[in-house]
């Protein structure tokens, strides 16, 4: 019978980290939250209930509509209220409002707009409406000025905003590990130059520079080109924290006995770096990355919010929040603020996850 102490003694480092991480309850919850968000991002088009780009003046500013699960006879048959056009007696304009007497039934795995999922062309969606008239839809989170369904737009925006963070962090990580590593391994003049450069970059006001650089992106660039350009612009100023972490860990580990042993055994500099040093602080890097991600996401959201980041027809959290910029609009359509909820949740979750990982990164401490 192995006791807990025995198990502890023979556990691998990954296991130790996992055990330590499991004790951080908020970090565990955050991991689940983030997993849900990334699944949502992956299946965004499948989960979308209507085309996120389709505009319809009839459905402008419809308040969030609940899904009723049971029909009048008590059987399970989800439905939403339809819409009807009412002639305004004063202006003779046709005004569309929610018609709670009309029931439009929901069909699961029905046909909707076409999209491609992992290279497969399909038009299946989780929920669509059966026999819907034009303008009717499942408006879980309401619609915006142009009558686009906020839930569907939010799903697609989540994919854009979450991946922009990942791509950006990858670039920052590359720069950070490279420059932080160089700084620590070579020391001397190279170290001084890189360290001063980091100090200078950290004291630059980021937003004005980002704004200036992203305003210069040509107007005729495609959504994808702008997407990558924005990520690169953001990463150029955000690699410094990662470089500091890498350098600090490098310097601390270089003094350890096992590195000396490797040197005495005749291992080359490269082998020591990649075989001995990097694996022993990968966990620290992962922790630093999960703390850098939220900053990345906030940056993209802020730039797009100001109209100088991603541009429509791209959909991201910042672009959705741009619609909510005006207080008068918000008073008319408060549900537009719902776009802020995923931003806050994801940033919080990444912070907790990063905290948990940082605590668990060094399981012997």
């Amino acid at each position, binding site marked *: 019978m192995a006791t807990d102490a025995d198990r502890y003694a023979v556990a691998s480092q990954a296991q130790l980290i996992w055990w330590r991480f499991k004790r951080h309850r908020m970090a565990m919850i955050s991991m689940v939250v983030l997993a849900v968000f990334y699944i949502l991002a992956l299946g965004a088009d499948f989960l979308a209930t209507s085309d996120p780009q389709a505009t319809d003046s009839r459905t402008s500013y419809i308040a969030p509509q609940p899904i009723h699960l049971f029909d009048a006879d008590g059987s399970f048959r989800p439905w939403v209220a339809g819409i009807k056009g009412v002639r305004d007696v004063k202006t003779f304009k046709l005004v569309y409002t929610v018609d709670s007497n009309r029931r439009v039934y929901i069909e699961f795995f029905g046909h909707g707009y076409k999209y491609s999922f992992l290279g497969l062309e399909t038009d299946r969606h989780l929920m669509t409406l059966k026999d819907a008239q034009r303008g009717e839809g499942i408006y879980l989170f309401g619609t915006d000025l142009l009558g686009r369904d906020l839930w569907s737009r939010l799903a697609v925006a989540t994919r854009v905003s979450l991946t922009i963070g990942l791509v950006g962090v990858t670039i920052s990580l590359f720069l950070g590990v490279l420059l932080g590593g160089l700084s620590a391994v070579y020391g001397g003049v190279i170290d001084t130059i890189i360290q001063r450069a980091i100090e200078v970059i*950290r004291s630059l006001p*980021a937003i004005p*520079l980002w704004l200036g650089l992203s*305003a210069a992106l040509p107007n005729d660039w495609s959504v994808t080109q702008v997407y990558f350009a924005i990520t690169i612009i953001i990463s150029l100023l955000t690699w410094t924290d990662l470089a500091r972490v890498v350098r600090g860990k490098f310097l601390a580990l270089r003094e350890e006995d096992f590195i000396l042993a490797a040197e005495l055994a005749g291992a080359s500099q490269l082998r020591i770096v990649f075989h001995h040093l990097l694996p022993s602080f990968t966990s620290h890097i992962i922790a630093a990355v999960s703390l850098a991600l939220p900053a990345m996401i906030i940056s993209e959201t802020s730039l797009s919010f*100001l109209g100088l980041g991603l541009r429509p027809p791209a959909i991201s959290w910042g672009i959705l929040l741009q619609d909510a910029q005006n207080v008068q609009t*918000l008073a008319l359509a408060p549900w537009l603020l719902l776009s802020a909820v995923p931003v806050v949740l994801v940033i919080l979750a990444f912070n907790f996850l990063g905290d948990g990982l940082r605590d668990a990164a060094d399981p012997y401490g």
Partner: protein
Amino acid sequence: MIAFVTRRLLLGLLTTWLISVLSFAIIQLPPGDFVDAYIAQLASSGSAVSAEEARSLRELYGLGQPFYVQYGKWIARVVVGDFGESMEWRRPVIEVIGDRIWLTLALSFAALIVTWTLALPIGIYSAVRQYSFADYIFTFFGFIGIAVPNFLLALVIMYFAFTMLGASVGGLFSAEMTLAPWGWEKAWDLIKHLPLPAVILALAGTAQLVRIMRANLLDELRKPYVVTARAKGLSEMRTVLKYPVRAALNPFASNLAYQFPQLISGGIIISIVLGLPTVGPLLVKSLVAKDMFLAGTIVLLLGVLTVIGTFISDLVLMWVEPRLRHQLD
């Protein structure tokens, strides 16, 4: 100590230089040279520029010559205070910016003061009374400060003020004071309007610093010398403030210096949401309209302000932190 100040000063100059190059690059980035853009702008508003004028403008800015020559010509004029002409406003850039730059500075400094005066006592309290009710409250607000981007916070506060109080909380002046000439009354009006945007702007930084201060102080409080001090009968107040707090101040203070760039950055966004008459809205408008001299100048001025602000923070830091004063002697 002199070594520390000189080092900081040199770094500041280096940063200023880098910012000036970047600002000029931003002016240059849009495709086509800006004399073409200028002529097109004028033509669209009905007035024409003669070939002669265009040629002399090109001469003036050194267009067609290498980047460093153009940069040299530009910086030589910037140094004597000539920032060029705003294409959109058809007035010298410096006139368009006007006192917006000072209001930007006022907002950032107010936020900095809020950060300093809140973060330190809250950090100390949260560490000394760890897991108390107030500690949980502060931690909760801290997480809000970290997780909610400040423009979102501004948006939400605006929304609730508008729907619940029916009041607009934006702006830095009351309506009747906006166009009034500067005087005591206007300054007082500004002081009355400043706290809300300053607090919104300061929240993220404060939350971050509270967490740093709390963690550092908790580490210090567990050390044996604190027990010794208590055993010797020092009052609790003195035990905490005299040694552990000063020891915990170092990482706290070195982080403080980087608050100013973040405040300048954040100020731009919340100014747009709250409609504050700082350079923020002007910068975004000029970038959208490709009014590059205006945009470049604003980036340059903000950068220089950041350098000055960081330098001042460094001096304050040196004053509160004896180890820094002596380590480089």
